[in-house]
């Protein structure tokens, strides 16, 4: 049972809050990867050598798919460059990662 003499504290909340986010749905998917250009984008995080294996694997899995490996100019955490975006916008789909 609580001691009646025990003082009480009204305390303020120490936490921040997140901003309002306007979100959007995903882009429509492709019917097939055959005849499409798929960019495998290496964002340089850690064990990135494995990213180099994805494009040949994808080509083998989908004959006729133009899978291209592309390492971004700078490492993970640095914004993509105009050159990076030119490459990205020239493709039909993208696989991105840095295996980390």
């Amino acid at each position: 049972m609580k001691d009646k003499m025990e003082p009480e504290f009204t305390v303020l909340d120490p936490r921040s809050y997140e901003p309002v986010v306007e979100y959007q749905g995903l882009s429509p998917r492709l019917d097939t990867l055959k005849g499409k250009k798929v960019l495998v984008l290496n964002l340089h995080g850690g064990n990135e050598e494995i990213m180099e294996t994805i494009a040949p694997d994808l080509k083998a899995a989908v004959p006729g798919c133009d899978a291209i490996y592309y390492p971004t100019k700078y490492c993970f955490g640095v914004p993509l460059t105009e050159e990076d975006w030119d490459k990205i916008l020239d493709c039909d789909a993208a696989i991105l990662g840095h295996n980390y």
Partner: protein
Amino acid sequence: MEKKGIPSVLETFDDEGIKGIATESFMQQGIPEIRQVFTPPDTSLTSLTKYMPQFIDALTKPLTDKEKKSGIYSPPRPPRIAMTGSYNEVQKYFEGKLRRTPHGGPWAEMTDGLPVTPPTEEAVAEMLKGSSHSPDEIIEFGGWMSGKHIATVEKVAVNAVMAGCKPDYFPVVLAIAETGACVGYPGDSSFGHMFVVSGPIAREIGMNSGFSFLTPGNPANTSLQRACTLMGINLGKCRHGINCLERTGTMYWGTIFAENEESPWELLNEHFGYKTEESILMAWGGKIQLNPFQNIEVKSVETLKDNQPGSPEHALAALSTITNENGALVLFTPDTARLWVKEYGFKTMKQLQDYVWDNVTRTRGEWVRNYWFWSHHRDVGIRQRERGSRMLNSDHLDLPDDALVPMFNSPEDITIIVAGGSGDAWTWGGSFGKPRIYSIDKWR
């Protein structure tokens, strides 16, 4: 990419923390339903062949109604008043539901694990008197690991009260808040945060810059460090095991101390272009370490008298062992700094920075065999030359294997600090480059 109409899939480590970061990051960027293929968190993996059907599905399988949906997401905001209760009930509330992850914890929800000073309306109002800034002024927190978070000067004051700070420390707390406080890193063993205060406020609030300046016990140093930790948790949303994935953690988590003004060199506020009457906060984030000088022995030094204050030979031997090229820290007691001026002729910090930069080198051959060099700096030539660096760049790539090139980015990335008690001692270590500088006076 998704926002520009390109169907995309993310390859992600099948690790709770990494998955959490990726999902949270895409949520904040307005693509909450990003498709992901989870691969084993195993850096020795050499093939993802068996995951090809998943990559193909992610790019071709029609979208669900949920994945097509667009809209506005308003995250819930915590109330201004948290609760009313006894001292123990307040502590229990802030400790919250102890959170575990598969590989760590438990962690307290809103504290560093210890009881806090109850942040009552009165205590917070008193803390706010330490600054002329409005309690409603917005301060943004967050970064690449934890996303953006919004706080106010009042929220910073709440955390400062909880940490045990006094109102006259508050401008320093606000400057720490401006740096982003103690937030997390994606995964390493010793990434941390360290701060040094230079200028009159250090004396005004009684910070320790002398004997045992790294040791708990001084009210200002200790409570400011704690405020940094609490702000990281509550305002920057540092969550160990989720967006702070340090495998061992670090001893430098908001470590803060003051420069010793008995330095024979220019004071650090002057060094960074401020006036001696101005107070600044120097902030380092990343791989922070300070090592005792005894860790480095050089053959030409045989006596304690020669060994204790170190020598340029010691400094070069020590700093050559650092694996990160971004920067270094060298810290002297005032007596040792004076001896280095007298015995070795380093009359300014700049002379010492240049000496270290010129003489801590790697061979070109060592550079190009370094894993981090090749994985992170494939365009090192362009990158470094853009930054005006004389470190390894594309010109150096044509040099013979045994040619020596500087190890650090620039002389400015080697920071010289004077702190500590009387007598000779020096420490050395690594950092992620030159510190970021924040005005404390702007927060008075």
